[in-house]
């Protein structure tokens, strides 16, 4: 495999292709007749998925940032189209690319109106998502970051549920509010550097180096605050989460999946890539750390408790996302290798499991046109395969060992317990509530009596639906039982962040040899 990829110079064009291909695909879809839209979209995303898969072999964890390319864009202002991947981003890129064909499949029959627009927007969204993860220039990052809003806005607003207009604009404005402040912060850094060094550069490395020499001075807390807020809204960190349930509930299946699986990860990715490396001292100032940890833990428990009482199954999963993302935040802010590795795994695991849940809910919705939990019950009788998959995916979301969910949560908790025992301890109660809300929901959907007449004729999973779910099930088990290869690839990146923070804030990351033995 590796030889083959080398032969076709895969590492030379892979990242470009990942961004450009969907954009070209989107243009083609718009340009060609509507009846080709689905097929084209599937084709493009499959190719995209293959390219994404190829990264597995070309990625070398020991190299740090790699596959770097930098093309001048606005030379006068030091803006380059600079991209690359490292251990933090490679799996998020792969997740985005691999989920996409499934998303295309999910709306295969359900989306009937404005096919061209739908599929074109999905592809644009894909390009944006991947762009965010590979951007190594803050201008480019920001452009991709914002660019994603539009397709998502349309996907929710045009193909969404009954209250879609409200949800779409809330999503849009809320996210935009955060990111614009981040824009100011980016500019402040760039121009501060310009005053000091005389050159303008938006390059990640340059700004990182500049932030590291401490010249930003009293500006730093504000800059960090701006970055923090932007990412906190995206994650979403409690209490910035209320856009999420609305957006999830109204979005069409594919958009829900991508929102949960990929878009939320951009927030936490942003922390790991930008906010923390740029401002380690601010991020881990005693008060900040305490506040963030508190918010993360509140998010975990609060999200779970509120999920418990949701009558709408999509809302339930949305709140569960708040809870899960709390784990990611906890893992990051605990600042241990295990915590960060765990955070990355939770990101992937949540991407797969919650994505799976949304796919499943979507399949139900296609059949029954309701998301009200009370409208179901006893479906296992008519849809045994569906019930089986739902239970498995739910279990992975609950974090049962052997599934992906466990590995991430376990790493996060064990990692955070070493430095933040209280927070980790409280967070661990999340595993109880997770079981409570999901199993209760599962019970009310697929178990109990099959007493609603309209549920009695429901068809079990079709072949297309199996095609969507099987890869996810494989992912769930693979990450759950054999996460080693993934962990090995992300470890250097996680270690690098911890080392960096340790250099600046030794208090936060005690050297491991302090342990008793």
């Amino acid at each position: 495999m590796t030889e083959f990829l080398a032969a076709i110079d895969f590492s030379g064009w892979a990242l470009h292709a990942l961004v450009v291909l969907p954009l070209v695909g989107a243009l083609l879809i718009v340009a060609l007749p509507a009846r080709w839209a689905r097929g084209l979209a599937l084709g493009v995303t499959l190719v995209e998925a293959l390219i994404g898969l190829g990264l597995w072999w070309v990625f070398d964890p020991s190299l740090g940032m790699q596959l770097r390319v930098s093309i001048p864009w606005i030379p006068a202002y030091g803006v380059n189209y600079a991209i690359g991947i490292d251990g933090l981003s490679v799996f998020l890129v792969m997740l985005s690319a691999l989920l996409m064909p499934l998303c295309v499949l999910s709306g295969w029959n359900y989306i009937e109106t404005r096919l061209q627009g739908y599929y074109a927007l999905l592809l644009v969204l894909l390009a944006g998502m991947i762009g965010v993860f590979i951007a190594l220039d803050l201008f480019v990052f920001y452009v991709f970051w914002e660019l994603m809003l539009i397709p998502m806005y349309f996907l929710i607003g045009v193909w969404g549920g009954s209250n879609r207009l409200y949800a779409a604009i809330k999503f849009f404005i809320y996210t935009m509010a955060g990111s614009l402040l981040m824009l100011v912060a980016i500019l402040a850094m760039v121009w501060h550097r310009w005053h000091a060094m005389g050159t303008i550069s938006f390059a990640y490395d340059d700004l990182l180096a500049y932030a590291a020499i401490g010249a930003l001075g009293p500006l730093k807390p504000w800059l960090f605050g701006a970055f923090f807020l932007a990412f906190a809204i995206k994650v979403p960190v409690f209490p910035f989460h209320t856009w999420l349930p609305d957006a999830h509930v109204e979005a069409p299946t594919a958009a829900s999946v991508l929102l949960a699986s990929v878009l939320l990860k951009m927030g936490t990715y942003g922390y790991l890539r930008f906010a923390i490396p740029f401002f380690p001292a601010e991020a881990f100032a005693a008060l900040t750390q305490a506040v963030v940890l508190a918010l993360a833990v509140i998010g975990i428990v609060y999200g779970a408790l509120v999920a418990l009482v949701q009558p709408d199954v999509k809302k339930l999963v949305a709140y569960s996302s708040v809870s899960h993302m709390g784990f990611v935040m906890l893992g990051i802010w605990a600042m241990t290798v295990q915590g960060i590795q765990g955070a990355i795994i939770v990101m992937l695991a949540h991407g797969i499991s919650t994505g799976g849940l949304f796919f499943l809910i979507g399949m139900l919705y296609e059949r029954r046109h309701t998301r009200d939990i009370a409208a179901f019950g006893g479906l296992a009788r008519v849809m045994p395969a569906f019930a089986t998959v739902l239970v498995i995916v739910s279990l992975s979301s609950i974090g049962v060992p052997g599934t992906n969910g466990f590995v991430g949560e376990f790493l996060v908790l064990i990692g955070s317990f070493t430095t933040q025992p209280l927070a980790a301890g409280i967070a661990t109660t999340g595993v109880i509530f997770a079981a409570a809300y999901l199993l209760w929901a599962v019970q009310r959907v697929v178990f109990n009596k099959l007493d609603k007449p309209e549920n009695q004729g429901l068809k079990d999973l079709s072949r297309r639906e199996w095609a969507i779910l099987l890869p996810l099930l494989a992912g769930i088990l693979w990450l759950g039982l054999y996460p080693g290869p993934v962990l090995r690839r992300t470890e250097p990146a996680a270690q690098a962040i911890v080392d960096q923070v340790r250099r600046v804030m030794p208090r936060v990351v005690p050297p491991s040899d302090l342990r008793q033995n």
Partner: protein
Amino acid sequence: MLALSQATPEVVAAAAGPAHWIWLAVALPLAGFVVNGALALWRPTAKRAVSIIGPGVLLAAFGVVLWVTRSVAGAHLEEPIVVHLWDWIRAGELHIPLAFQVDQLSIVMLLIVTGVGSLIHLFSVGYMREDEGYARYFSYLNLFVANMLVLVLGDSLPVLFIGWEGVGLCSYLLIGFWYQDKANADAGKKAFIVNRIGDFGFLVAMFILWKALGTLTFREIAQVAPGAFAGGSAVVTAATLFLILGCTGKSAQIPLYTWLPDAMAGPTPVSALIHAATMVTAGVYLVARTNVLFALAPMSSTLLAGIGAGTAIFAATIGLKQYDIKKVLAYSTVSQLGYMFLGVGSGAYVAGIFHLATHAFFKALLFLGAGSVIHAMHHAYHATHSHEDAQDMRNMGGLRTAMPVTFVLMSLATLAIAGFPLFSGFFSKDEILASAFARGASEPVYYLYWVAGLAAALGTAVYMARLITMTFLGGNRTGAKEAGHLHEAPWIMTGPLVVLGLLSVVGGAFNLPAFIGGHAGLEQWLEPVLAPAARIRPAMMPHGATEYLLMTVAVLIGLGGLWWGYRMTSRATLVPAAKAVPDTGFAAVLNRKYYVDEIYDALLVRPLLRFSEQVLWKEADQGGIDGTVNGVATVARALGRVGSWLQTGQVGLYLVLFLAGALYVIHAVTR
């Protein structure tokens, strides 16, 4: 993919040959799960294939275990054989391989799990044959066994935890097997969630240990812990307390026992396998596994013993007034598990494990016997289209004539559980009580535990006698028409019962105490595993006369209890459930299980739900947080309207504002 742990003595090498195939014991049931699961989804009618695959894989696994046992038995392992499968989790210094460890303790458990498991699988073939979820049932059961084997084989806490949660999951699935009835699904969910509370403790315990010791494998814990922790230090106490929380969840002890009686909603063989013989004993196994920690934390041990003793007496009293045959057995199980905890808490790990084994035999037998009875009752009611409760003992009576084999075998099991001399339960229970009593010398609270244990023994004898009496003795109350339909179960069901009956009777032979000529086989067998604890906090045993005295007391209490139970029940005027008057007074309290479920519900569950819905969701989330978000929008809009309202279209006003601006600009510039 497979690698043996390095640096094992040569003797081990010989034993290791078969031992490194131990993964087969896990893989076989797992394969069974996959195949049966696939059949359940796509060929639910292929019952013959399921009948072969389901029990077949288990028998094969049993074979593998026997083979491994044989090779290990001769090796006198000082160190476990570790079968490293693959790296599971590796992050920084945290390194958790997916590895199995074969040692004396896991061998004992393997034998029980696969042996009893095989019998119960066979029994199930008969019991479940007519169920439409036959294949699904076996796939779950296979999965359960696989997980249980992972639990007992795991060489580290996280790997054990895979099995730990896995069995919980299977328990959830099997309790809710007949999910169409909401009560069953509820019971399954309850089991899982309550178990999760325990798991919370388990997880925190792991975190504490990792933080303190930097390792989670049992071998390294045993090596490192005595050096890292001072005896009774806060950290190890905390770790063990959280482990105890985990154990109370899984093994249905106070305060987390409430799920187990509800779990009887599952098919009866499931109750026998999971909720009597294997899964619920996982807590005991865990304590034995981490014996070094408990030895280092005497406070936790004492608490554990106290929980065990308390649960034993508590559950036994509830068992006295239950009418559902399975509920009686369920509370009996809770009570017996209490015994085991009393044992391991007292430092008598061998006694605990011993009781675990004997309990597996006689309780499995009791459950299967009850299953056989229920099977018969069910058929009878089915034949007459009656909707009476097939599990209510008030509807039974006099079944000894219709089901003689079951009657005899259940009577044997009753004698075993009641501690009738020379039956299996007699030895194991006696050993536990004796060690508790002996511990009392240094820690007087153990005397109290001992008394509680005795009282529980009395209770056990009483309710078991009551069970046998109500079910098999006296006249039949099933109904005139139905009585004719009551039959003994087919051989596929009675066969396993016979085997279990045999084991219940002679099971004590595995660890015959020295004073009656035994050589304490189990004790010697487990010695390498329990050595770390033995060095720190050795088990205490009374000697000589005291021992005989204690034994005599126990036997008398057991026999007295049996007699009392029989007298009490046979004198009572028994009527079928439909005509029975409700219990009153304390009997009602017992019948309603001290209202613990209701109390939990009122104090914890409902307030939490109400709080989540009304306060968190409606007030905080929608009102407070989202209200603020929308409020910002509303305020912006309102401000806009104010601005818009200022825009009156009147030039005069525009000019006034113009001039206000002009005054400001002039002021600002000329300042």
